[in-house]
């Protein structure tokens, strides 16, 4: 079998493969550190029983689903019943619920969202609390 302009094509293919794979070999061994979230805001430290509305593992994986459910409950069904966790009441609200404890958006929300390169548009409308040192 004969390839017309075989040499050029082969060189081209090699250059293409090298470029295509460049992100992989250039970044090898340079893995970004896993984001460590800070959950020691002054508000959380004041809590006697430091419990979120669901277990940590569940929140980590499904918090967006919970926020969607809360949005539907509050905005569409007008259901604002508060959630009780060990005697403490929490609003079903991002701005007036979650962020009342997690007052460190940069070290809590953004860290992970930046790491996984997602850009949720929550903060286009909802107002983030004033950043506090944790």
């Amino acid at each position, binding site marked *: 079998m004969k390839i017309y302009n075989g040499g050029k094509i082969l060189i081209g293919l090699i250059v293409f493969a090298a470029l295509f794979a460049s992100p992989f070999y250039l970044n090898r061994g340079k893995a970004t550190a896993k984001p460590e979230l800070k959950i020691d805001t002054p508000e959380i430290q004041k809590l006697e029983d430091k419990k979120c509305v669901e277990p940590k593992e569940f929140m980590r994986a499904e918090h967006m689903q919970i926020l969607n459910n809360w949005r539907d409950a509050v905005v569409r069904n007008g259901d604002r019943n*508060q*959630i009780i966790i060990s005697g403490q009441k929490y609003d079903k609200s991002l701005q007036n619920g979650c962020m009342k404890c997690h007052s460190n958006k940069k070290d809590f929300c953004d860290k992970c969202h930046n790491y996984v390169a997602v850009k949720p548009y929550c903060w286009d409308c909802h107002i983030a609390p004033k950043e506090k040192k944790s």
Partner: protein
Amino acid sequence: MSMNRRDFLKIAGISTIAGIGGTALAGALKKGALVAPQTAPNTDALTGKRWGMAIDMSKLKSDESIKRITKACHRIHNVPDFSNTKDEVKWIWTETFEHSFPGQEHKFMPEDMKHKPFLLLCNHCDNPACVKVCPTKATFKRKDGIVMQDMHRCIGCRFCMAACPFGARSFNYKDPRLAKNLQEHMNPEFPTRTIGVVEKCTFCYERLVKGLKPACAEESNGALVFGDLDDPASEIRKILASKHTIRRKPELGTEPNIYYIIGGNDYAVVPEIR
């Protein structure tokens, strides 16, 4: 390999049942894994079946009181002020009699009535035209009569603005957070809106759940009476039964729920209307 039609249908049927049953079973099992949190029923909330408002124009005597009411609403709800009519966002605003109740004005009406600023807001109609045209159901009628909007769903098509005969809806042509008044002060308890969505008065649904009346009614010293029109014992029903009231454009059949008591000629100043 060959297969006759009978065998093929059997296998297809069994795999369909296994597929549907399997997913249902998996879903049911997954649901059980969720820790259901306890909820506290909200007992503070004001509840009603058809919220409405009666606005007594004879009690709104000065520009200051009108300004105070408008400001209270716009401040609580982070309404941007761009100081130009094109980008204007309004939840509660004023208009002349002629523009508020078109067709009811005449040459010989009292001069002060012609220029009196009438306080206007969303009418929370029984048959809201805006709700009918919304392609995403972003705006909808709640069980208590409030015409609500879900800003998460609004795609900014502005059909509702075209449909509303009262001009109650405003579009965010600019990012509201760029407005000077919002850069100076934002209510941290209430969200702003984003560029490209339509907004309007929500009858303070967020205050009703806390047992508070709408901000405008609270700020008005009794000129704006808020209440449940379906409750015959309510204050608003007593007012409507005892005084003559008019509504904006009732002929359109949207059944607005804001009533105006016109009366009074004691408004002497000709105000700047905005």
